[in-house]
């Protein structure tokens, strides 16, 4: 049986509150907080990017996996904010971990779904017997245009998973994907900020694909919502995961352990994978987890995991995701945030 043998998350310490952003743009903070169910979001420091966060999350995953990095046969980084336009993030990650040179490396990009894409491929290669271990990371330092609704949610974080065949933390019971061509969110080449279709990002996009993937995988696995202890849906804001959960027949208590978005923001490719790390942190042997990602453009990947006894040994070999979220925070004013996110035009 194949599954997760190690996992880890990383969150930068900087935060900005919804009120601080709303103050600058003359927006009504309480209505944003209520409407999006967001309080604050993480912000990367100028020396942090998708690569640095991927390295730290992957190092935590290695601590839990207890394997030699040289045995990792595939290193995948999923992100829509790879630091280079041309040059892989995965080579830096593989080199920093000491996994080179006998390793297959690729960068994935599919809006917020790139992390689970890497997971899907790494897990499939392990299943096929092509590699002993596969590492997949979902990470982003996403940008929303100043004053746009996305600016209140676009955040930074990473989650890493190592897949293997022995010493599993969670068995991969089933996987499934659901895709269509849906132009709900995009960024053209050389454009700094993405554009989105407003309300079009809801019904025909997020809800259609998550419901399609969730129903598809439950049908394939012969399971129903009440069979799961936990469920993680992509978290572009606080409201959508609860709404789609209700539409599918899940209860709030199944969603809450992996629901980080109110204090974290939307970490794009890291979003649902980070929710999975927080869920694994508190799960018990035998419990079943459903995760459904969503990436604009558009599609969803879904996985069913069953937690094993090894979770009790592995859980505290690296920091828990909620501890990373709640501790050592540094609140920024909008000016410093704008500087950190390179929103200020400077002289050459």
């Amino acid at each position, binding site marked *: 049986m194949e599954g997760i043998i190690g996992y880890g998350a990383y969150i930068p*310490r900087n935060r900005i509150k919804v009120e601080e952003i709303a103050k600058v743009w003359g927006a009504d903070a309480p209505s944003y907080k209520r409407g999006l169910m967001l309080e604050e979001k993480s912000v990367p*420091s*100028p*020396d*942090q*990017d998708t*690569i*640095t966060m991927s*390295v*730290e999350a992957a*190092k935590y995953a290695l601590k839990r996996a207890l394997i030699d990095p040289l045995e990792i046969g595939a290193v995948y980084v999923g992100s829509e904010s790879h*630091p*280079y336009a041309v040059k892989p993030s995965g080579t*830096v990650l593989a*080199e*920093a971990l*000491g996994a080179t040179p006998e390793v297959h490396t690729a960068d994935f990009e599919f809006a917020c779904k790139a992390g689970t894409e890497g997971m899907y491929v790494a897990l499939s290669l392990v299943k096929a017997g092509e590699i002993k271990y596969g590492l997949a990371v979902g990470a982003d330092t996403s940008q929303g245009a100043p004053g746009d609704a996305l600016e209140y949610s676009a955040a930074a974080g990473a989650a890493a998973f190592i897949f293997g065949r022995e010493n599993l933390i969670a068995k991969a019971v089933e996987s499934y994907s659901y895709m269509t061509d849906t132009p709900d969110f995009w960024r053209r080449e050389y454009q700094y900020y993405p554009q989105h279709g407003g309300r079009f990002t809801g019904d025909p996009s997020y809800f259609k694909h998550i419901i399609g993937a969730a129903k598809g995988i439950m049908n394939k696995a012969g399971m129903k919502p009440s069979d799961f202890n936990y469920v993680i849906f992509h978290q572009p804001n606080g409201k959508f995961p609860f709404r789609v959960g209700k539409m599918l027949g899940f209860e709030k208590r199944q969603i809450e352990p992996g629901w980080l978005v109110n204090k974290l923001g939307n970490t794009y490719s890291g979003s649902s994978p980070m929710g999975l790390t927080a869920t694994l942190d508190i799960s018990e042997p035998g419990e079943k987890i459903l995760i459904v990602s969503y990436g604009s453009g558009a599609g969803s990947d879904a996985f069913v995991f069953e937690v094993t006894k090894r979770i009790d040994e592995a859980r505290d070999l690296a920091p828990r995701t909620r501890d990373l979220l709640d501790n*050592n925070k*540094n609140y920024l004013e909008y000016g410093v945030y704008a*500087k950190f996110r390179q929103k200020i035009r400077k002289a050459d």
Partner: protein
Amino acid sequence: MTTPSRYWREIPQRYRLEANKCKNCEITFFPPRLICPQCKNRELEPIKLAETGKILTYTVIRVPPHQFVDQAPYAVGIIELDDGVKITAQVVDCDFEDLKIGQRVRIEFRKIFQEGESGILCYGYKFVPE
């Protein structure tokens, strides 16, 4: 200006803290050396340095070199790693008033600087409070 070839040569020490040790007199070198300056021995074995240590001393840089302007002010410390090797690096994710000599720190992978708007991105180690 860091050339890509120089950056590339330093990847093992900057990414993974790889050092080496003279098999004869057991001195550790970081960055690694080809010949031991003590006994001229050419047999040096690769080792990996500890990723945790303590601050021996530090200062706060407010007028930085041009590559670091956007990061100022920032702290730079001499860190004694748990294997006794002393290295110089930035200490980040910490308020300056909380920095203390003897404070425990650990390595984090960070972007050190970038070569302008079109050059390479240079990654390496910094320290954060443990």
